[in-house]
């Protein structure tokens, strides 16, 4: 364990954990849009920046992204200094200029007192804030079906060559993890559509209820050694089956 001071309070943190984890454990609310426990920290949205210093730094202070900064013994952290708040305000103002219609951004910006961007609205701005969560989770899951293309202000998230991505299995993790709900998909119980690709859903042989996509099941069978017949029925039917099997064993016991 290491000892750190957060907003004047001495707390203990686990070695190797990031500052953000320690700060959130103290129930201090600091925003972060590109952070998710499922993937490695990235440091792109810069909202979780905090001020750090140490006694031996002779008054020198630094601003770091807490999601990426490993805790250190003796670290003195301030999460809401005027500069830090000003920084978050500016960043949210900039996000708002790029994604003026995003409810998530608008809500967060309003919390910091920004209701209207003070900058020029970006022409053709979208709700995508390029946090990279979708591509990172897709990489982490082993598909790497989508990635960031171009750079700078023209950067966007897209499947290769902007064609339906061959490596996508339609698991929807990207859509779920997207903080601004920008990634769109449809699912009518028969087919699922995302990134311009169509996926057939598997259905429970007993109830007819849809489960996951054929491609996803195939991937799990091949790469995670899940027996293929597990996917024939859905969870409810699995439970019913288990109840009947156990019921039968119990009944035998009774009869004996």
């Amino acid at each position, binding site marked *: 364990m290491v000892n750190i001071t957060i907003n004047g309070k001495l707390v203990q943190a686990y070695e190797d954990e990031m500052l953000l984890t320690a700060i959130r454990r103290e129930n201090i609310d600091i925003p972060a849009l590109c952070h998710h426990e499922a993937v490695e920290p*990235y*440091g*792109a*949205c*810069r909202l979780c*920046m905090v001020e750090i210093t140490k006694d031996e730094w002779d008054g020198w202070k630094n*601003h*770091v*992204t807490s999601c*990426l*900064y*490993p805790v250190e013994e003796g670290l003195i952290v301030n999460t809401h200094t005027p*500069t830090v708040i*000003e*920084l978050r305000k*500016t*960043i949210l103002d*900039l*996000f708002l*200029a*790029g994604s003026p219609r995003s409810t998530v951004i608008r809500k967060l910006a309003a919390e910091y007192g920004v209701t209207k961007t*003070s*900058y*020029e609205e*970006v022409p053709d701005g979208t709700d995508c*804030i*390029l946090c*990279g969560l979708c591509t990172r989770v897709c990489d982490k899951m082993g598909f790497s079906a989508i*990635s*960031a293309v*171009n*750079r*700078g*202000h*023209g*950067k966007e998230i897209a499947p290769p060559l902007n064609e339906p991505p061959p490596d996508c299995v339609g698991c929807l993790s990207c859509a779920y993890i997207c903080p601004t709900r920008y990634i769109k998909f449809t699912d009518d119980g028969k087919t699922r559509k995302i990134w311009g690709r169509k996926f057939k859903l598997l259905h429970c042989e007993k109830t007819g209820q849809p489960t996951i996509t054929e491609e996803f099941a195939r991937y799990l069978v091949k790469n995670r050694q899940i027996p293929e017949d597990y996917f024939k029925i859905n969870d409810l039917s699995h439970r019913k089956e288990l109840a009947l099997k156990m019921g039968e064993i119990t009944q035998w016991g009774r009869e004996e």
Partner: protein
Amino acid sequence: MQISTPKQLKELQQKFQDKDNKLVKKIIVCHGPGCLASGAEKIFEEFQQVLSKKKIKGVTLEALKKTGCHGLCEKAPLVAIEPAGILYTRVKPRLVEDIIEKTVKNDEVIPELLYQDPETKKRVEKYRDIKFYSHQTRIALRNLGHINTADIEDFIRVGGYQAMAKAITKMTPERIIDEVTKSGLRGRGGGGFSTGRKWATCRKVKDDTHYVICNGDEGDPGAFMDRAIMEGDPHSVLEGMIIAAFAVGARSGYIYVREEYPLAVVNLQIAIEQAREYGLLGESIFGTDFSFDIQINRGAGAFVCGESSALMKSVAGEVGEPRAKYIRSVVKGLYDKPTVLNNVETFANVPVIIDRGAKWFTGIGAPKNSGTKAFSLVGKVRNTGLIEVPMGTSLREIIYDIGGGLIDGRPFKAVQTGGPSGGCLPDSLLDSPVDFDSLTKAGSMMGSGGMIVMDDRTCMVDVAKYFLSFLVSESCGKCNPCREGLYQLYKLAVKVSEGRAEEDDLEKMEKLSDMIIIGSLCGLGKSGPNPFLSTVRYFREEYLAHIKEKKCPAGVCRELIRFEINDKCDGCTACILACAYNAITGKKKEPHVINQDLCTHCGACVTVCTRNAIDVI
């Protein structure tokens, strides 16, 4: 030919020197980037042909040399005749026969080809008497203009690989690091971090693998120092890297060269193969248990890949995006292994330091800024080119003594140092020394060594706008302050230049700049607002003129200027023909008039007018 002892290397050097001493004359054709662009290859071929046709006693084809950049690119292509030390400028293929006939054969100088001093108008016969050269001290560029490009024999002849032999066979890694630390060598790529300390930290990290990387991703517009070294003297980069590898305990190294430098890749590749052939790269170098090899990686043209962590990602085959360096790359760099990354020029300095000692090196330059720095001097100076001066040399000395002052004797306005994210310094700072700390204090930076001189016809708002637009398009787009912040800063600069800005916009820009500096992830974003901040710091009135009076004093910003024909017009109709928008009317030999509604302020009329009859208001 495998060299296995330092003694063998010495013998080889002697052999190559003897061979060289037999040459009565040397004809050196510069093959630097500027000269190549002006047709140096044609001139070289012409020399080959003429030489093989004419039999001149003692002058064979071996006398002909293809060297790296001489530096005086303004006067390209260059040909030097040694040992007389004559430099011919702006040589044309048709003059080659003349040069051979007169100068090579009969030791006769051709005055028209000599360099003309812009002040005294006198022709300068000797190379070393040219002011451009006499104010320079060349360490990193020591071999450029003297040895054949990518030729290990020539390199060994001038003492190449001796420092490496000394380091590997006579010194311990700790002593090498100590020597480099004591020399005060600081990263020449712009960071200015102590090279010795970097190596020491890397060596201390316990790991089975260490890497050495050479950063040759020189992306600043107008900069070509590293290019000149990689193309003209690749072996000195290799030698520096080998010494570094021995010092930190690395077995493999990478040279990351930007895509736009194909010749650098070719020459480095030749040099690596030659070094392997001579046993200077590979297994058990000099019979020790030290093994090291180098591989070339080509960038794909992204400016941000010059940033160390983005570069390492690119080498590893990932997208070239920087990462936060709270855990430094000397500890966890390429493939998460401890990695030393230095710039081309830094590595080129290392062999000299090992050879001549830290004490000698600290004797050059300024306190805490020892040694020299190479710059590419460009813009509105008379002698544009590649230079190397001791640290602490004043800007005035560089611009006026070496650069020969401004073209047409126009007034100096500003000098931009440090590449796109550097800053513009005004004439009041001309006497300040050029070193890492002074430039940073002045609001600019050393950067990798670009130096752009601007005259009074340059609008500083326009300059800031240009560099911001460069940075906006070169930002990797990972973090918000750099991607969105610089974009908005650029948009505001456009607003100023178009006369749409209000006074509080300036304040807004300054505030935004502060936040971009604090908030950005890597050096590109953190230094991104510099073009704006330095120009607004020294040229605030110019910004205010755009905002309050809606005027561009330098007559550059199109939206704020007006072209008008004055009474000098003699009605030659040249401007009428040049105007693509039919905005100019008038009869022959009668004054012409510009229709302001149709004029787009392109300036084509000004360019063609021979009588200075068009005013920019």
